[in-house]
């Protein structure tokens, strides 16, 4: 699927900010909190003076009052390391526009925002998402490369939970893992375990669950259909359209709710998106919600 930088909606960086809720380990200096200490303006804590410490960081007041030599430490602000995980399984390539297109544009918009903020962006997409994680992209000049990597995602079977687990284990530092997937074949319990493990490793996870309008609200006119999923695995025969729609609507709501609960349990952010909405609006509302919760 060709994707150029011109197609990527540019989000207003002044109004929207991609930020993590926890301190992540960017490699470059930036404006996001990090677990590292260094020269910065935000005081972190004291520690006992050691030989060789810069005397400018000696807390002279405490020395004067208590006769105790302590060195002042400051939290270092670094860039935000973002990994964009794109589920490119066959089920994503369905709908008009397809969920894969919508997910790609959403992630591209998010990545562009991150690049604009000076953060580092990694792309993990396709059947071998973990192996495809390459060097991070930095700066707005990497937008085209980001788009190329996203568009080059090869289709294939992929389980978001397993991909997140693999990424979390593979990445050496704490990252913000943004997953775009329909989660239709995902087991909420597996999702909870995977996101929980990633959180335990220090990563922050966010899930953008993308579904088509038809998947959220099954068309009543479908009637009797021999339905199979794009991967050709399951066939259902709904002979009573009304009853089938009612049953499916309940089931899909229950599944989305279960996914949301699983994410919440693993401290992962969950957002449901419909593929026929503009990607900018989807990402915009999501980021606004994240900022409000922070």
């Amino acid at each position, binding site marked *: 699927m060709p994707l150029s930088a011109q197609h990527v909606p540019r989000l207003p960086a002044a109004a929207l900010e991609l930020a993590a809720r926890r301190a992540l380990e960017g490699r470059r200096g930036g404006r996001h909190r990090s677990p590292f200490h260094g020269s910065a303006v935000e005081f972190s804590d004291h520690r006992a003076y050691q030989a060789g410490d810069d005397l400018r960081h000696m807390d002279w007041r405490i020395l004067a009052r208590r006769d105790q030599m302590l060195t002042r430490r400051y939290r270092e602000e670094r860039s935000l390391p973002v990994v964009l995980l794109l589920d490119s399984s066959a*089920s*994503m390539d*369905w709908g008009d526009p397809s*969920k894969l297109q919508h997910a790609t544009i959403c992630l591209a918009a998010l990545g562009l925002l991150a690049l604009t903020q000076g953060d580092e962006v990694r792309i993990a997409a396709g059947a071998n998402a973990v192996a495809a994680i390459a060097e991070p992209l930095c700066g707005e000049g990497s937008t085209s490369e980001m788009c190329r990597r996203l568009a080059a995602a090869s289709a294939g079977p992929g389980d978001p939970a397993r991909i997140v687990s693999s990424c979390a284990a593979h990445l050496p530092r704490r990252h913000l893992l943004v997953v775009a997937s*329909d989660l*239709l*074949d995902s087991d909420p319990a597996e999702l909870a375990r995977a996101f929980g493990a990633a959180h335990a490793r220090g990563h922050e996870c966010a899930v953008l669950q993308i579904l*088509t309008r*038809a*998947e959220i609200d*099954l068309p009543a006119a*479908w*009637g*009797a*259909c*021999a*339905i*199979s*999923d*794009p991967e050709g*695995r*399951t*066939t*259902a*025969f*709904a*002979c*009573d359209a009304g*009853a*089938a729609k*009612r*049953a*499916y609507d*309940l*089931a*899909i709501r229950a*599944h989305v709710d279960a996914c949301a609960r699983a994410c919440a349990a693993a401290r992962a952010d969950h957002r449901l998106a419909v593929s026929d909405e503009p990607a900018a609006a989807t990402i915009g509302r999501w980021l606004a919600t994240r900022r409000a919760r922070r």
Partner: protein
Amino acid sequence: MIAFLLPAAIGLAGLAVAPVVIHWLTRQRARPLAFPAAGLLARATGGLARVKRLREHIVLLLRVLALALAALAAAGPLMSGFGTSARPVAIVLDASCSMRQVSDGSTAFSRGRAAAARLAEALSPRPLVALVAGATTLRSSPVLESGAGAAKALLAEAQPGYGDGDLAGAIAQAVRLLSGSGDIFVVSDGSRSALSGVDTGHLPDGVRLHLVDAGGGGANHGVVSISVEPGVAVAGRPLLWRARIANYSVVDAVIPVRLACGPASRAVDLPVPAGGSALVELTITPPDAGWLTASVEIPAGDALVEDDRRDAAVQVVPALEAVVAGDGSRSDAAGALRPLVAGLTAAGFHVRLADGAALAAGASQGATLVATAGLASRDAESALAAHMAGGGTWLHVLVSDADALIRPGGAIPPTEPGPRADLASDGRSPLLIARARMEHPLFEPFAGREPLLSEISAMRLRLTPQGAAGGADVLATWADGSVAVGERRIGTGRWLILNISTAGVDTTLARSEAWPLLCGRIAAQCAAPRREDAATPVGSSILLPWLHDPSGERLDAHDGRLRPDHPGLWRGNAGRAVAVAIPASESDLRRIGGVNASTRSADDVLAEAERRPLWPWLLALAVVCLIAEILVAGAVRTVKP
């Protein structure tokens, strides 16, 4: 065992596959559609689809069942089961003469009796009564007994009669005995005469009539009547015997017939069409008065031999007998009787004079005409009724008011008595005949001579008759509109009322030329032109004290009446002869037809009588299936996830 009233309707059960075909033709065909959430959809609707599919199959099954059951119900299934009913039973055995017909070496009666006995045995657990419908009597076993011992005994000793067997009366009696509920089995040969008079459509609702076939229906030829012409045989006058031979078969036949009367006889080969009849005639002139007999024979060898010979007997009178009777002064030589006697004698009658008492005592015996004038009492009413019932004529001359009040046998007089008239001081007022029906045979001689009638005058009575009554004819009227001459048929007899006193002081009739002409016409008409059958049917009532049957055995009267129970030439005192013959209808052995009167074998009838109709239950089941189908189909349409 299950039988069907309309087995062809079972074919309708093929319609039961119609719902399957319609379902197959109109079933929703799934169109392939890719859907990422197919797994979720399958999990969500899988159970629902299974329930719906199951219900659809149930609906289909119910529709098939409803149609199949309705088709089976239309076929009218019956289930057999002997002895399961407690309905009372009446077995009526036809003992008419036609049951004597022979086929396959046995008579229909013997076969019918065996069938009746078999019915009695099979139905003995039920209250049962047997009736034998014979020629003269209806015999019945004790009412509704269990075990049927008396009924079987009655059937065992039953013998066929020579009469027509009153099956209608027997069935009516059976209905009474069953008190409106039960089964009546009529065992008969199924001949056309068997059920004549039986209205199967007017039986009580609770009574079912079953016709059991005793076999028969063979081809038969028979002598069905011998008529004589004129109806009164007069010595010295020619007499015509006419025998009717019937051919009750399906092919034309030439039947050799021998008709004999005394020394005269005639033998002919008579061609008779199938289902028709032909006549054989023999004319003789009896020389003397007395009893004359005749016989007709055809060769025996057909199914029924009893109708292959028929006897006939008529009384030959020396002349036409007339009895002129009257009481009181008006019957004397100067009264009304004298012109009567004179006129009737001139017309050829042999006139005997009598009074009312003699008439009541039987003085009219043998007379073809009884003329009365001025009877003082009503004692002779019975004798006059019997005279007319025997085909005689009563010339009722109204001389006094008492005459107008005579009612023979309670019969309606030809004319209604008029209101009492206010007459002149001497009680009389003269009238003239104003109008007469000239086309009537009585007035034939007056055609062109009408003044002969219009000049007749008479004194009217206080109770001068008015218009006709009871369908009588008014033949002539007086000037005031009252009746002058009226006529009424009483059976084969005739009641001729003459409202013209023949007394010379009362009328000019006796002095006019009209009177001899009128008497001549009365003589010509009072004797019946023909007697249709000169034989009496078996079982008829005869007013004689005794008779000897053809074998010489004497039969005495009970209550003054004789009922000969077998055919032949019976003899009484003074050479009197009575020919007794089987009813003509018994010769017709052709079978009855039609759905309501078809007969079947005893076993078939018995099986059907004991069968229980299954179709109401099948119909109810079909309706239940239909209701269930509607309910389940509605549930399928409104199923909730």
